[in-house]
């Protein structure tokens, strides 16, 4: 660790992994509810489990992003963090607010939660991923601002690198587009239109800047390749992301009441969205091949390469699969969407945060890399989680294709629930593979507690 | 001094001026075809060919790609051939 203040990243990373575990547990509950419909009903109805599952995902990724930026910004800026104290305060505020929100979801009927938290003042709840009560939404703004302030002040007083600029810009975008979560017009079409400004412009826009910056940072560290080269390609890749991704928002505007031209604009630009992901994969492998040093943390290299590959598969390939308007006409809102969502989020965001944790955590704990044994365990957990998530995506794709066929393409379409009964085999298999994913995650957590008998020196 | 520079500078520009004149001429030809309202397969293919020649001229001689590696010229040329070819295909499909 080069700067003492980088240590504030540690609680963020720990919280991220803990919440990740929570996300997976709720995922398994939902997976079971898909086939055993009354499982845990009425204690945890599906909608509550899903809310917890998706909200935990967002929150743990945000914890990961924050931890990552508190770790890498001091090192990039070559100066101590502006205010480590503020970072710690922000951490506790965010953690407590997140915990209270999740408890609220689980303990209180959603309608009562809405009433008690001032949803009547400003209607923002009850929209997918934006289910948070108003105080939590405001809290996220404050946390994001505090994070942004701390990072910007640090960057301003130190060295300004491309990585820190891109990361800061990504955070700025994250904070800015979050503001659209407060806009909820009665007009459903407008509501949906601007809802995507949060959801799409986050995950297929500004978050990718954060992803790119984090990946570039780790690649510089583990490969020793010239910063000039890596930063140059970082710019090129995120340029392509914005060129394709911003207008690519149109692939959500096909069938929700917006003008027909979005069918063309959305299809054409989002069809190009795999390009930046492909570039990222080629770039990551190239940099590792051209490495000037062999970093003792081999696990981190695996996570980094895994990010680039699975992000391409999940976000690029699986996205392309159903992004063209004529295809999406049949696949819109089916299990195919779920398949894409799972693999893309895991590949692009879960993995990049884990990459960062894998690289930084040993250093935060006072060593360049973990022991051989711990690293082997980490790699096992990488393969278990990645392969099982890939299989889950394949199973959901299978389910989606059958669903589309029976419910939408067929001359004699079956009703939704009748089709779901036909898909049970896919859902059972998904649940089983989900358990494997959980084992992978537990193994990952266990690898932190492996006693370090032969520490690897830098 | 100034006039020296101008002298050396003017010389190679005959070539680009000629290209420019060719481009203008081809544009006017296309325009005249358009004005007469002619249509049909042959007209369509002629117009497309003129278009592709014009873009190739701009890429090669204005952009200066004729001096570059085969790779870049190849990318540019195949772009025009593929885009032009697909357009032609679509138009032929559209002829009843």
């Amino acid at each position: 660790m080069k700067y003492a203040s980088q240590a504030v990243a540690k609680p963020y990373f720990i919280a991220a992994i803990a919440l990740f575990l929570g996300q997976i547990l709720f995922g398994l509950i939902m997976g079971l509810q898909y086939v055993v419909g009354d499982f845990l009903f009425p204690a945890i109805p599906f909608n509550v489990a899903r809310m917890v599952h998706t909200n935990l995902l967002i929150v743990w990724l945000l914890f990961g992003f924050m931890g990552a930026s508190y770790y890498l910004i001091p090192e990039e800026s070559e100066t101590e963090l502006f205010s480590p104290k503020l970072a710690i305060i922000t951490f506790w505020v965010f953690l407590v607010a997140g915990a209270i929100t999740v408890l609220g979801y689980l303990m209180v009927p959603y309608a009562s939660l809405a009433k008690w938290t001032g949803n009547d003042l400003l209607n923002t709840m009850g929209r997918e991923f934006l289910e948070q009560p108003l105080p939590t939404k405001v809290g996220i703004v404050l946390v994001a601002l505090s994070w942004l302030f701390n990072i910007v002040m640090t960057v301003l007083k130190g060295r300004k690198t491309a990585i820190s600029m891109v990361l800061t810009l990504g955070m700025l975008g994250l904070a800015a587009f979050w503001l659209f979560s407060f806009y909820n017009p009665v007009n459903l079409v407008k509501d949906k239109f601007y809802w995507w400004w949060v959801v799409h412009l986050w995950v297929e826009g500004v978050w990718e800047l954060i992803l790119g910056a984090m990946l570039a940072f780790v690649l510089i560290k583990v490969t020793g390749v010239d910063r000039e080269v890596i930063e140059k390609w970082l710019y090129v890749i995120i340029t392509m992301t914005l060129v394709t991704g911003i207008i690519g928002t149109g692939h959500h505007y096909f069938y929700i009441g917006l003008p027909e031209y979005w069918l063309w604009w959305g299809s054409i630009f989002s069809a190009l969205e795999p390009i930046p992901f492909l570039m990222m994969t080629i770039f990551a492998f190239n940099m590792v091949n051209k490495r000037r040093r062999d970093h003792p943390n081999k696990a981190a290299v695996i996570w980094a390469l895994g990010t680039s590959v699975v992000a391409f598969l999940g976000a690029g390939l699986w996205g392309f699969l159903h992004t063209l308007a004529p295809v999406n006409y049949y696949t819109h809102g089916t299990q195919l969407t779920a398949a894409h969502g799972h693999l893309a989020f895991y590949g692009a965001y879960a993995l990049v945060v884990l990459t960062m944790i894998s690289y930084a955590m040993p250093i935060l704990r006072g060593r360049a890399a973990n022991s051989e044994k711990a690293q082997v365990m980490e790699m096992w957990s990488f393969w278990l989680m990645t392969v099982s998530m890939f299989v889950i995506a394949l199973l959901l794709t299978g389910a989606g294709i059958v669903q589309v066929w029976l419910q939408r393409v067929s001359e004699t379409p079956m009703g939704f629930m009748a089709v779901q009964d036909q898909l049970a085999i896919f859902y059972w298999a998904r649940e089983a593979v989900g358990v494997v994913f959980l084992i992978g995650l537990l193994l990952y957590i266990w690898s932190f507690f492996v006693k370090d008998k032969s520490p690897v020196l830098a | 001094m100034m006039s020296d520079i101008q002298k050396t500078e003017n010389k190679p520009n005959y070539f680009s001026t000629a290209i420019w004149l060719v481009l203008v001429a081809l544009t006017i030809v296309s325009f005249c075809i358009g004005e007469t309202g002619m249509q049909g397969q042959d007209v369509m293919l002629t117009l497309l060919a003129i278009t592709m020649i014009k873009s190739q001229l701009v890429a090669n001689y204005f952009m200066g790609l004729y001096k570059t590696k085969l790779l870049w010229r190849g990318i540019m040329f195949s772009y025009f051939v593929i885009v032009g070819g697909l357009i032609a295909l679509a138009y032929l499909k559209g002829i009843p």
Partner: protein
Amino acid sequence: MTKTQNIGTRLNISTNTLNKEDLPGDFALWIFIFAEMLAFGVLFVAYAFARAKDVAIFNESQLTLSLSSGVINTLVLITSSYFVVRGVSAIKHGSSKHCAYFLTGAFLLGGVFVCVKMWEFNAKFSAGITMSTNNFYMFYLSLTFFHFMHVLMGMVILGYIIIKSLRSGYSVQDYVGVETGASFWHMVDFLWIILFPLIYIIR
């Protein structure tokens, strides 16, 4: 990358005439150019295939376009591209001032293009035509507007280069910036060269 390195690379290329050159200008912009060509290419082909499904409406709507404003704009852009060629040639021979003059000419012609185009858009809008009128107008407005924005961006780039060259910011040794901007402008030109006959003439 430092400036001296640029100059080194550039000199290396121009003295070694046997070797084929690399792309004129900065490769970073060329990646962008290729991406834009791809986007336009897909749009052109999409137009052609959408037309094939609906030939009658496309042919009928095409007749309402102003062919003369299209041809004027084509000539304007070709000429401005020619000026840019002269500008690059001027700076290669060390004349910042001539470079700036030629590029200003190109910039002004870009302005003419923008005016003609705005007149054309205005005529269509006041006739109540929008992107939702029919598929032909959707493509016509999308493609021309998308291209129109590229002209504006090209003008911003040219403007920047003009100011920099008036301040003698380029020289015989270092004119990568001019070439980079020139490449972008030529791309805007040849995309219009394809767009014009495709949308306005071919039927």
